């Protein structure tokens, strides 16, 4: 209800965009919307293409004319949509677009097939339905969806309730909804739909709708299927967003999703126009779908929209169904699709407070269906439909398709809810869709029949959602308003109105993506979104950098600055240049171009890469970035083959791969001298606190073994990294550990005001040559300072010392500083305690994030110039001014590790593991990164741990395998859709063996001139990565409230732009989200609630500063889990795979369960108060809940499968994350649960952060304001 993700819609469009698609799509969307309320909107957005389509497609045209083009598009779009859902598909889809048209048909068919697939998915479908039910219920079913789904089926039967359900749904939303919705949906869908459809849509839509429906149905079914895979989530919640739903569902995306689907459907329809087949399919599918539609009036409508196929009619019907209003606008699309349906639904549902809901649901469902549906359908369809040229395109869709199915499933789920309500009206359309689905698979027939069971539910669900949403929304809205505050309103009202299960579920999206990402991801296709970061997949480098190295926010960049500005979607890439690849993937090859160095473009200096076009028989090459023509040096000359490729293309990594390395020549070295091997310097605080906490002892003991694991490139050889040791308190102690000495010598430097290195020879030594002396030293250090009374420490001089040592040795290197306290001793960089919590929340709060004085900034600059990377291990017992201490590490590409109240017994393991990893991890030194791009865009802003002395070069004293840099791009000209947008990230660094190298990552993305394409191909996780970094930097200069508002605002603009331009028209009360961004609100809410932006009272300033700095170098994987923790139920650990995560909300926790929650920084084991004794016995070796020792940091080693498996899971988690996570056992009702609750990010937070539901409502309100 709430959140319809257009994804489906968008995706379809996105891909279709190509020429046709976009317009078509947009039209589609528009169509949908148009048909529905939103129609116009979309149309306008798409107008270019859309207009024509709109009209044409709109209703009939889409069918006919659009058919060819639009359809393809739509298909694609759908496919894309699905793809979007599943990244790959999208890309494929896009490409295919051309073909797609034919495909579209296929796609359409696909949609049918999908549905069929859905049926196959049935299992899922039900879920979808459930989802939809949920949707219907509240739209919020997301999480529950699955469960709901099952339930749904039954519910379906229940359908009748539908109508009631709807209304009821809202209330039930929270939980019941699902069932209700399901029940209602199904039932209603089946029954109601029929009835409904008839009323509003039914008649009109019926015929046309059929096609549309088919589409829709296809979609829907597809959606359902998809949903299961991807769509589900999207659809149900946001996906459904599809314009159509949007309009109807306005409030909730979920509905929209469905609607989106509709759009897609429309497309489909249009594309499908091929309808014939679709129709044929549709019929069958429709039957299925139809049923759903009917119930879900709106959905149905939406679906119907798809039915557009049947053309306008259907759409109209839909539109009418959804909401009569749309009809007009939508003509083709919207109308045809869900829009109308919504009306219908509305009409029907009207009761369900918000027709919107109805609309939404439908839309959502539709969208869901579409999205997912399209995709999956496409594939299947294409396959099935092979006949159609589209089939080809479909194939791609198929890929996505498979995924899609799930999507559809979800979508369907969502859909269902919405649809449920609407279904009735939609009924007809629904059938169509179903028919399509059926056509595709069993669905057609089953659909209807199944519908009740599976599809119907979905639709129903969709409708239900719609309804839900509607009702919910109101509440939500109010909630949102409150939002500013805690978003309390949502509380009761929301609950009543919004079912958490009906709103987009991250878990669903993640699971769907996992399900569809079975094939290795190949990077050869431009603009193809990779699987989500939560998905395990393998990569084949075929010319673009692996997503492990580069992830973009949008794989389809707007061509013009205006578009970019309009959409407000950030254009950014998160680059992790030295990322470690899994063992089965080859690390970048090293290329040696010999004496003259790497071949580069004469003008822009881009390095040789696959984008360089060889011309004139291979004598010259044209730069893909700046188009400058450069002579090929004789030694690099090679003939071209008949396709214009160099004959040796595949022999040379730089001509065929996305990532590779060049050996740099002397010209690339500082002072034109080949670099020395780097050095590691360990600087250990030996003040009273450090000694007392046991830190000194631990570090010294550990270093003895750690020195054997210094990084090296050749595992056989000894590391060439030299080491040095310094201890310090108020003064610094250097150690001469020259191998020839019998005993180490300590050199005290008290002149901290003007730091210098007292010795050269003997300070930095090769470990093997000085092993004995070093060991002797490490043995003696703890003794020497055992009785120290010195409590004051310095910090600035410590860094200076390391820096000077590296300078003296003329090498780059890394400092490991183990520090405990605020440096108050008289010395440069002395800090005063400025902890003042009263500033929190005021305009002066930003000063807390700004370092004291400029000393450390200057120092950082010097460090960077020398290639001195600083890693800081902090062991504070009180305020240490993390902000200031972190300046140097952050600016030099280093890391900060913080162990507050460090105690040897409990924190040793975490610290040592962090230390080990930090020492051992591969890294580059003295690095410079430069991002070059196609003419038209420019890298304008960079986020991460580094220093910049000019606007283009990112200087990193050290760059390790965990560090990511987020780069933001801005237009400075137009991009071309033909060439896409290229970027090349070149990192010049010194390897740990002292070799100077250049690592090059190339990335090409598509460009689009249609917003829908943009929205179809975004990656929310990456956007969140960007947003968080952007916001966390923003707090330096603005009050946190301003920063939060800015984020919310931009997010609202993004979604509003989509709603306005891409989604099918729907009532304003409907929330429509793009499929690929349907999680944006939930994730954004997590960012807004983070300790940095909205600290709870017990969060120290240091912690906030620490997090702020820490996030700046996180990659997408880390930010994702950091902001949306992974919460796993530990009920059944039998299988080799991880249990499916649940949403991070207290509601999801069962008293009888044990859960594990992981954020990348924290690891909790939550034990319910009434866990079975057996489980406790297995886990803790004690049968009593009260006997569990909550202070344990590791689980007892017990010889039972459960314990083994759990420990294995934990260790796997730890292995995956750059930081070792200390296990914290949380007993329910225990005081430590407060901490744990902080990470249940979908709930309201103690600091006043809104719950997901509340925030969604708030967001919706914002969007509505923008739209009005």
């Amino acid at each position: 209800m709430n959140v319809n993700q257009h994804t489906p819609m968008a995706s379809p469009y996105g891909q279709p965009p190509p020429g046709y698609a976009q317009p078509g799509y947009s039209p589609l969307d528009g169509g949908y919307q148009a048909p529905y309320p939103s129609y116009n909107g979309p149309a306008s957005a798409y107008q270019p293409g859309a207009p024509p389509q709109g009209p044409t497609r709109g209703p009939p045209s889409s069918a006919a004319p659009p058919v060819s083009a639009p359809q393809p598009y739509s298909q694609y779009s759908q496919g894309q949509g699905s793809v979007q859902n599943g990244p790959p598909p999208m890309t494929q889809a896009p490409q295919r677009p051309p073909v797609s048209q034919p495909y579209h048909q296929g796609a359409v068919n696909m949609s049918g097939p999908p549905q069929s697939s859905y049926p196959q998915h049935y299992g899922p479908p039900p879920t979808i339905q459930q989802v939809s039910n949920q949707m219907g219920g509240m739209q919020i079913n997301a999480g529950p969806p699955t469960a709901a789904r099952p339930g749904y089926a039954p519910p379906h039967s229940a359908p009748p309730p539908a109508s009631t359900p709807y209304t009821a749904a809202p209330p039930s939303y929270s939980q019941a909804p699902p069932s209700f919705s399901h029940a209602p949906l199904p039932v209603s869908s089946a029954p109601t739909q029929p009835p409904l459809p008839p009323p509003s849509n039914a008649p009109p839509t019926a015929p046309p709708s059929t096609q549309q429906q088919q589409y829709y149905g296809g979609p829907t079914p597809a959606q359902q299927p998809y949903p299961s895979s991807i769509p589900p989530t999207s659809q149900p919640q946001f996906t459904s967003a599809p314009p159509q739903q949007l309009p109807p569902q306005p409030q909730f995306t979920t509905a929209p999703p469905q609607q989106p689907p509709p759009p897609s459907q429309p497309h489909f329809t249009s594309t499908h126009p091929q309808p014939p087949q679709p129709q044929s399919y549709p019929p069958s599918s429709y039957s299925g779908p139809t049923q759903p539609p009917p119930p879900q009036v709106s959905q149905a409508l939406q679906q119907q929209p798809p039915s557009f196929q049947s053309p306008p009619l259907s759409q109209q019907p839909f539109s009418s169904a959804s909401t009569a209003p749309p009809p007009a606008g939508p003509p083709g699309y919207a109308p045809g699709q869900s829009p109308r349906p919504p009306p219908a639904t509305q009409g029907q549902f009207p009761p369900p407070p918000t027709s919107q809901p109805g609309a939404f649901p439908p839309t959502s469902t539709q969208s869901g269906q579409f999205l997912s549906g399209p995709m999956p359908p496409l594939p299947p369809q294409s396959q099935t439909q092979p006949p159609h040229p589209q089939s080809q395109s479909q194939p791609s869709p198929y890929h996505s398709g498979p995924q899609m199915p799930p999507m559809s499933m979800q979508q369907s789920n969502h859909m269902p809810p919405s649809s449920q309500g609407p279904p009735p009206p939609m009924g007809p359309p629904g059938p169509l869709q179903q028919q399509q689905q059926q056509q595709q698979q069993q669905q057609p027939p089953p659909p209807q029949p199944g519908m009740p069971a599976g599809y119907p539910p979905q639709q129903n669900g969709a409708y239900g959602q719609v309804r839900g949403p509607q009702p919910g929304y109101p509440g939500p809205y109010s909630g949102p308003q409150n939002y500013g505050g805690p978003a309390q309103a949502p509380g009761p009202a929301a609950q009543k109105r919004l079912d958490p299960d009906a709103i987009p579920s991250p878990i669903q999206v993640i699971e769907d993506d996992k399900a569809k990402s079975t094939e290795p991801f190949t990077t050869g296709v431009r603009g193809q979104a990779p699987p989500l970061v939560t998905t395990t997949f393998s990569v084949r480098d075929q010319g673009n950098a692996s997503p492990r190295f580069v992830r973009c926010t949008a794989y389809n960049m707007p061509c013009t600055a205006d578009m970019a500005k309009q959409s407000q979607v950030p254009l950014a890439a998160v680059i992790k240049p030295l990322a470690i690849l899994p063992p089965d993937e080859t690390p970048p090859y090293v290329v040696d171009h010999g004496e003259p160095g790497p071949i580069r473009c004469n003008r822009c200096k881009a390095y040789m890469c696959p984008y360089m076009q060889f011309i004139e028989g291979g004598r010259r090459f044209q730069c893909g970035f700046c188009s400058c023509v450069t002579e090929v040096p004789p030694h690099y000359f090679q003939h071209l083959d008949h396709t214009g490729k160099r004959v040796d293309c595949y022999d040379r990594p730089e001509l065929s791969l996305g990532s590779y390395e060049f050996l740099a020549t002397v010209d690339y070295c500082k002072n034109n001298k080949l670099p020395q091997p780097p050095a590691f310097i360990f600087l250990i605080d030996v003040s009273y606190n450090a000694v007392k906490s046991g830190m000194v002892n631990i570090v010294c003991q550990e270093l003895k073994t750690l020195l054997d694991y210094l990084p090296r490139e050749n595992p056989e050889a000894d590391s060439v990294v030299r080491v040095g040791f310094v201890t310090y308190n108020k003064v610094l102690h250097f150690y001469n550990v020259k191998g020839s000495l019998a005993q180490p010598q300590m050199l005290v430097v008290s002149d901290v005001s003007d730091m210098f290195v007292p010795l050269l020879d003997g300070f930095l030594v090769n470990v093997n040559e000085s092993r004995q002396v070093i060991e002797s030293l490490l043995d003696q250090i703890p003794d020497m300072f055992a009785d120290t009374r010195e409590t004051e420490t310095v910090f600035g001089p410590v860094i200076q010392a390391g820096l000077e040592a590296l300078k003296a040795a003329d090498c780059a290197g890394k400092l490991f500083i183990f520090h405990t306290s605020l440096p108050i001793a008289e010395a440069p960089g002395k800090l005063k305690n400025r902890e003042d919590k009263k500033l929190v929340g005021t305009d002066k709060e930003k000063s807390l994030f700004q370092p004291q004085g400029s000393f450390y900034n200057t120092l950082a600059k010097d460090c960077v110039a020398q290639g001195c990377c600083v890693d800081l291990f902090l062991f504070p017992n009180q305020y240490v001014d993390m902000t200031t201490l972190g300046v140097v590490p952050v600016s030099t590409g280093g890391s900060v590790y913080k162990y507050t109240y460090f105690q040897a017994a409990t924190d040793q393991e975490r610290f040592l593991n962090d230390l080990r990893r930090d020492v051992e991890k591969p890294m580059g030194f003295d690095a410079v990164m430069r991002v070059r791009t196609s003419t038209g865009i420019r890298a304008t802003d960079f986020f991460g741990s580094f220093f910049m002395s000019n606007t283009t070069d990112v200087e990193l004293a050290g760059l390790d395998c965990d560090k990511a840099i987020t780069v933001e791009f801005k237009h400075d000209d137009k991009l071309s859709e033909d060439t896409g947008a290229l970027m090349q990230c070149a990192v010049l660094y010194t390897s740990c063996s002292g070799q100077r190298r250049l690592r090059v990552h190339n990335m090409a993305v598509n460009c689009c001139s249609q917003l829908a394409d943009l929205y179809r191909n975004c990656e929310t996780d990456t956007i969140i990565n960007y947003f968080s970094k952007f916001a966390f930097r923003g707090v330096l200069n603005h009050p946190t409230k301003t920063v939060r508002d800015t984020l919310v605002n931009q997010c609202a603009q993004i979604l509003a732009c989509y709603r306005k331009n891409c989604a099918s028209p729907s009532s304003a009360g409907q929330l429509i989200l793009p499929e690929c961004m349907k999680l944006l609100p939930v994730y954004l809410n997590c960012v807004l609630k983070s300790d940095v932006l909205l600290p709870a009272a017990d969060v120290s300033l240091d912690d906030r500063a620490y997090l702020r700095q820490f996030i700046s170098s996180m990659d997408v994987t880390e930010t994702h889990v950091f902001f949306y923790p992974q919460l796993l139920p530990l009920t059944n650990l039998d299988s080799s795979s991880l249990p499916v995560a649940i949403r991070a909300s207290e509601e999801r926790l069962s008293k009888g369960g044990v859960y594990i929650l992981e954020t990348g920084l924290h690891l909790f084991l939550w034990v319910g108060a009434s866990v079975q004794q057996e489980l406790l016995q297995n886990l803790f070796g004690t049968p009593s809940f009260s006997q569990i020792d909550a202070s344990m940091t590791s689980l007892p080693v017990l010889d039972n499968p459960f314990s083994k498996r759990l420990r294995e899971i934990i260790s796997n988690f730890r292995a995956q994350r750059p930081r070792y996570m200390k296990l914290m056992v949380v007993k329910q009702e225990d005081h430590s649960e407060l901490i744990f609750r902080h990470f249940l990010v979908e709930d309201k937070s103690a600091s006043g952060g809104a719950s997901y539901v509340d925030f969604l409502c708030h967001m919706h309100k914002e969007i509505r304001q923008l739209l009005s």
Partner: protein
Amino acid sequence: MTTYQEFIQQNEDRDGVRFSWNLWPSSRLEATRLVVPVSCLFTPLKERPDLPPVQYEPVLCSRANCKAQVDFRAKIWACNFCFQRNPFPPSYAGISEVNQPAELMPQFSTIEYIVQRGPTAPLIFLYVVDTCLEEEDLQALKESLQMSLSLLPPNALVGLITFGRMVQVHELSCEGIAKSYVFRGTKDLNSKQIQEMLGLTKPTAQGQPGRPAAPQDAASTCRFLQPVHRVDMNLTDLLGELQRDPWPVPQGKRPLRSTGVALSVAVGLLEGTFPNTGARVMLFIGGPPTQGPGMVVGDELKTPIRSWHDIQKDNARHLKKATKYYEALANRSAVNGHSIDIYACALDQTGLLEMKCLSNLTGGHIVMGDSFNTSLFKQTFQRVFSKDLNGDFRMAFGGVLEVKTSRELKVSGAIGPCVSLNAKGSCVSENEMGIGGTTQWKVCGLNPSTTLGLYFEVVNQHNAPIPQGGRGAIQFVTQYQHSNTQRRIRVTTIARNWADAQSQIQLIESSFDQEAAAVLMARLGVFRAESEEGPDVLRWLDRQLIRLCQKFGQFNKDDPTSFRLSESLSLYPQFMFHLRRSPFLQVFNNSPDESSYYRHHFVRQDLTQSLIMIQPILYSYSFYGPPEPVLLDSGSILPDKILLMDTFFQLVIYHGETIAQWRKAGYQDMAEYENFKQLLQAPLDDAQEILQTRFPMPRYVDTEHGGSQARFLLSKVNPSQTHNNLYAWGQETGAPILTDDVSLQVFMDHLKKLAVSTFF
């Protein structure tokens, strides 16, 4: 009283005092006309084995600003200097004609008291070692240092600072890991900073402000200065592990040597821990300071270290700055009673010119050699720790010399290894000679031969004659820390008769001590030379000489041949002649460092040694009789003689042409030429005797006719025969010297001419 010779000798033996005039002219005017001022060479710690120190406190004149000690009869005694009447203290109650306290016996004009009050502080030896040495040199130095540990009294505190590019202060009390504090060689730090960085500042929490911690505290807390007996092994190992400065020295560069900072740290360390306690900073350097404050020359080898030529052309960039820096350091050190020795061993200059004040002002030694791996250094260094008959070191610390005069006299100044304490008083003359303006000087490092030149001014007006038979009195009060850590006060009281210069000029003339006068004038000359241009000083000396000759010579006007000088002045012109040629005033052929080195020793040695420096001694060995002193003249260089020349700094054995041939022929190995062997051996034995006792050990040169080293001899002797006059003189004896220098004969001729000249 017999002859003045005997009187003078007796006075020197008893009191270590040699006056230029032993009768004092009774008025200012007359005194001025005597040309050579009333002045004396005073050796405060002249070894007096026959003088047992007394165990009680001296009796002081009660007038606050007088404080003259001792003297005199009855239960009331009158201060000889201010005429204040003082009662004897109770302890003198038993005083009587038969039971006189030592002060009152005439043979005890010098008396030494042992002060019982106050804590005794151990001796402190702080080694400051340059590590920018050749491996061989460093090894030799390390061995010498290790050896020296065995020579130190067990309770002496010892410390070690090493420097190269950085300055390291080694902590000696630690177990296990050798620990040192490092200072950057380029940064000038003040004393407080240094102490803070060394962790020597005490938490000021409970300390009573203004009251420095007792030395004992410091002794137990200062980790850098530890009793030898406790850290003997540690330090030996530490020295053994000393490495050459590890910082790479690029081609064409000098090693970076932070001598300035090292000294600053040493001074700061002692300042903070043991102020006003006897301490010796022993600096060992193998080259010039090349960085940081006190830098003498840059590290570019292409820039040579300054020469006299550069200095005259004002081309020595670092000279003034460095000198100023070291002077400041020296003054700080002097204030705290710490002396600084410089042991410089290098073939090139090491910056002694700039650093000389460190030793000059604090009474430290300067030793200059070519390498630490020479016996010159090793022996000399060992001799620093030589002991007297009582088994005490021949060194004393923290001396304060106070001079009191009766009211007809005032103190103009002192020249010697001392610094002014700026003690104003009634007996301070406005007319400064040497270091003036005070009645007290600090002589941080003393040994039995340390001699100061003290200059006085007769202030009695001509129209206020002193009663016949009146005596002027001067009292030298020297407080010092004996090497056995006792505080002692040695008081020498001198009295001389006044004489009316108009009526008793003959008496005054006969009381002239020409040796002392020559040395005292030479000190004045050297003192001037330090700050003035060489030629000006020579001219001044010449003028003084001529005026003296005019005053006391017997001649007919404008008749040079009639010129005669009395016996008591007869040698004086000759001394002046050699002085003019000496390295103390002539910088030609000497590097600035060498000049500084020579001057350093000249202004601190006693009269005998000083005279040797001015006019080297030449002994001749032949078959014709026992060794005999011969004229320092080219005419003494004969083929059949062996010459032994002692210039104080060099000991040259010169084999005449014939002797050299015989020796080459190996006659000495033949039994029948045993006598020849003995002849050859004789100068060696004599030389050995000198080598054994002299500090610093002279450069020992064994050469022969035509040998390159013969230049040492040839440059010293009076060039009576040169290539210019060789044939004119027609003599066959002697060896011509290839020089354009004037000979003594010519010098005398000119002197006579000028002395008798009316117009001079």
